[in-house]
């Protein structure tokens, strides 16, 4: 089978040999190929098996049914949009159900219709096309190599080193410019590790007093005498910073009331008040709030990666990937009987970072208690 209908000359090898027996896509002036060739023309063409008329007619009916379903479901979608309003949970649910199911039915019916079309009306194909090696062949490669060298020589870049070097040099600062521009992504200060070492617990209030511990959520200060049932636990934030997320990310506490005899030596008793102990709630692993507490075992558990700390024993790690205990906060009561922080954490709370160093050891060396 020859093909005499090249409108435009093409190097022969760029045109893959046409699939044997298929109608020429370039027949006449047409680009789009055959317009419904009669079935008998296809019979006998290897690799193209036409469907028999009865199957095709059945397929047509089935596909038409599917497309009709799509039409109806599409209309139902638009109607649902107008009819169902959103707002509370119930109406939103109804609207979502109506919109979603009509959309799904429309799409799935359309898909089914096309599949029926392909499988029952279009012929079955088993056509063969040749594959050619990816490599472009020695002639082409040689031509490209020669042209490349010739072009490089013509451009003069090989013979004029000054041109070459100044061009490269000139590009360097321009390439750096975007990086320089990114500098202000960061804050104006650079003492990051200092920031990480301090929390608002170390700052006195405006009137020079120690900062009170308040209950997260209500913001109520905590009278030590009222927080008196052993096993009690509170999530605590610093007064005045109840909604400051940056402050909370370092300063949130977990406050636990123990019986005096339950407290083990790992806990710094000087930093407790009447069996009340305050630990950083920010896990020393990657910073999730260690929010779960088991009263009977005094275990604080971080729900993210299950680091487990013994609250009775200075919150030392007893399980999981956290490497350090939750820092303890020194607390006392003010003259009205409310719990306050007497100083900042002795070590940086939260996840480890490069510049942190062994802050616990440093504190111990200086005679303190981590």
């Amino acid at each position, binding site marked *: 089978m020859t093909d005499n209908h090249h409108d435009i000359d093409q190097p022969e090898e760029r045109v893959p040999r046409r699939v044997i027996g298929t109608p020429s*896509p370039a027949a006449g002036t047409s680009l789009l190929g055959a317009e419904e060739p009669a079935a008998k023309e296809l019979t006998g063409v290897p690799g193209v098996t036409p469907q028999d008329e009865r199957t095709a007619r059945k397929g047509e009916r089935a596909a038409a049914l599917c497309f009709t379903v799509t039409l109806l479901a599409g209309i139902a979608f638009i109607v649902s949009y107008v009819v169902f309003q959103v707002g509370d949970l119930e109406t939103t649910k109804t609207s979502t159900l109506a919109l979603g199911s009509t*959309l799904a039915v429309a799409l799935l019916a359309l*898909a089914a219709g096309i599949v029926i079309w392909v499988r029952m009306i279009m012929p079955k*194909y088993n056509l063969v096309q*040749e594959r050619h090696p990816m490599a472009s062949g020695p002639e082409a490669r040689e031509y490209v190599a020669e042209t490349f060298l010739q072009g490089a020589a013509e451009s003069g870049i090989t013979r004029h080193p000054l041109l070459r070097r100044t061009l490269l040099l000139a590009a360097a600062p321009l390439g750096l410019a975007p990086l320089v521009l990114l500098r202000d992504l960061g804050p104006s200060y650079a003492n990051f590790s200092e920031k990480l070492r301090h929390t608002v617990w170390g700052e006195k209030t405006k009137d020079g007093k120690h900062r009170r511990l308040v209950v997260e959520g209500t913001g109520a200060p905590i009278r030590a005498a009222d927080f008196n049932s052993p096993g009690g636990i509170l999530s605590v934030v610093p007064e005045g910073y109840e909604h400051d997320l940056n402050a909370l990310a370092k300063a949130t506490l977990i406050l636990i009331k123990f019986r005096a005899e339950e407290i083990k030596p790992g806990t710094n008793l000087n930093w407790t008040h009447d069996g009340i102990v305050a630990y950083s709630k920010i896990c020393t692993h*990657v910073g999730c709030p260690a929010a779960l507490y088991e009263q009977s075992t005094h275990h604080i558990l971080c729900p993210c990666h299950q*680091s487990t700390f013994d609250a009775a024993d200075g919150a030392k790690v007893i399980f999981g990937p956290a490497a350090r205990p939750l820092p303890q906060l020194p607390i006392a009561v003010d003259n009205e009987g409310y719990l306050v922080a007497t100083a900042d954490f002795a070590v940086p709370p939260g*996840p*480890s*970072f490069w510049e942190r160093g062994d802050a616990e050891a440093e504190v111990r060396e200086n005679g303190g208690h981590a």
Partner: protein
Amino acid sequence: MSTGNVPKPIASTSSFLDDRLGAGNFLKRNLRKIFPDHWSFLLGEIALYSFIILLLTGTFLTFFFKPSMSHVAYEGSYEPLKGVMMSEAYASALGISFDVRGGLLMRQMHHWAALLFVAGMMVHALRVFFTGAYRKPRELNWLIGVGLLTLALLEGLTGYSLPDDLLSGAGLRITEGVAISLPLVGTWITFFLFGGEYPGEDVISRFYSLHILLIPGILLGLISAHMILMWVQKHTQMPGKGRTNTNVVGAPFYPAFMAKAGAYFMFTFGVIALLGTFAQINPIWLFGPYTPADISAGSQPDFYMGFLEGSLRLMPAWEINFLGFTLPLSVLIPALVPMGVIMTGLALYPFVEQWVTGDRSEHHVADRPRNNPHRTSIGMSAITFYGVLWLLGANDEIASIFHVSLNWTTYIGRVLIFLGPLVTYVITYRICLGLQRSDAAVIGHGVESGVIKRLPHGEYIEVHVPPNEAIEAHVRGKAAVPMIAGTETDEDGIPPKGMRGPLGRLRAKMSRAYGGEKVALDEGHGHGHDEHAAVGPGKDDKSLTR
């Protein structure tokens, strides 16, 4: 050829275009491009169509979402949160859910499509791996694929953080905890990412521009390149009748493949619409606004982040302090090593395999996984490694559902992460050889016919008949795994040049183990179903059991 005439409107439009674009030449070559058929070739299409659906639903969401962390009091329709202080991002995400008709549907479809996008990429990558479809000339497309998978994880991570609810905030906090643990640059990266201390007020708008512009832009470019390369190199085909390394057998692009692809897109779209309608995902209104002070138990990331979560949970509490610096290995190792092992392993595999087998030829016929048992075993080991990490990412759920000790799930996981892949390797290898032997039996002895014959001396036998052509051709598509020629030492005991150093000896050894024919089909007897080619255990490779 009497094909009739092209209808006038189409003819005039196409000549208009062709006069200006010369598109005819392209169409002439490509309209009837042949696409081979196999169910497993459809897996990548799921990812492609999910990406399109992500673009469509995502664009809708951007019309209503406000990527701002400034504090507002919620004034929307959802009663329980009225008056609560929250970020504008969360408020607008609630608005999409409750105050925009179809908003909740689009949000849920977007989330489901994201899961399907990554899942589709993963199973597609596995298909390509196990059938060796990454081999020359497709290594570059494989690398693009690895890049796409990595970017998709990043895209998922940035998108997950946008609604700024309590659950997404937990993910963000873990991201921060991991970033800050990096040696030397950790605090710099974190303070630059968050514009200061965590959480700051910048990260959501920054993630937003990454999520809707930068990463999808790169994804779009890489996906286009992936498609173009696939088109130019033509798809691989499964072995079968008439299929060789120098042809493609299948259906033409126009009209059959085009229509099928269209239908498949609609199916994917429809299924995602069904999921978005009936399977609730990420009900952000239940979680409340983000605060670093709170978390809910049982917090789980999207499934594709599960393996990182699992590896963080699995890790023992190692931390090194030296010279005043801290190396938090309990974060660094689990966050970087599994991801690094998997992604680097994927990227390098085609090149390592070429180095081991010395095979530089083009491959267009896919391997059946059994026919390259070491590759299949390596792949299955990697799946086990990933799977153990992934399961351990939900060890709290496992502990509570099956009433087992949480701590023990971790201890067992720490053993399984090393033992599991090894055991899987051996088992997979034996299964592959078993399957090869069963193939050899089909070729050598034929298939059971169901006809029982009584022989004159009273013995009953089942008559075996030759397998049908299609099956036989499929089985006979097997070729020995290439290996470096002449790795054996010569008569004087001197190994060939290039195999003398320690690396060369290792290469020769690996090549001998990896390559070759473990179970021959019929020992070169040609069409041997009559000859009952002997397939005895004596000829098997016993390298793993000896």
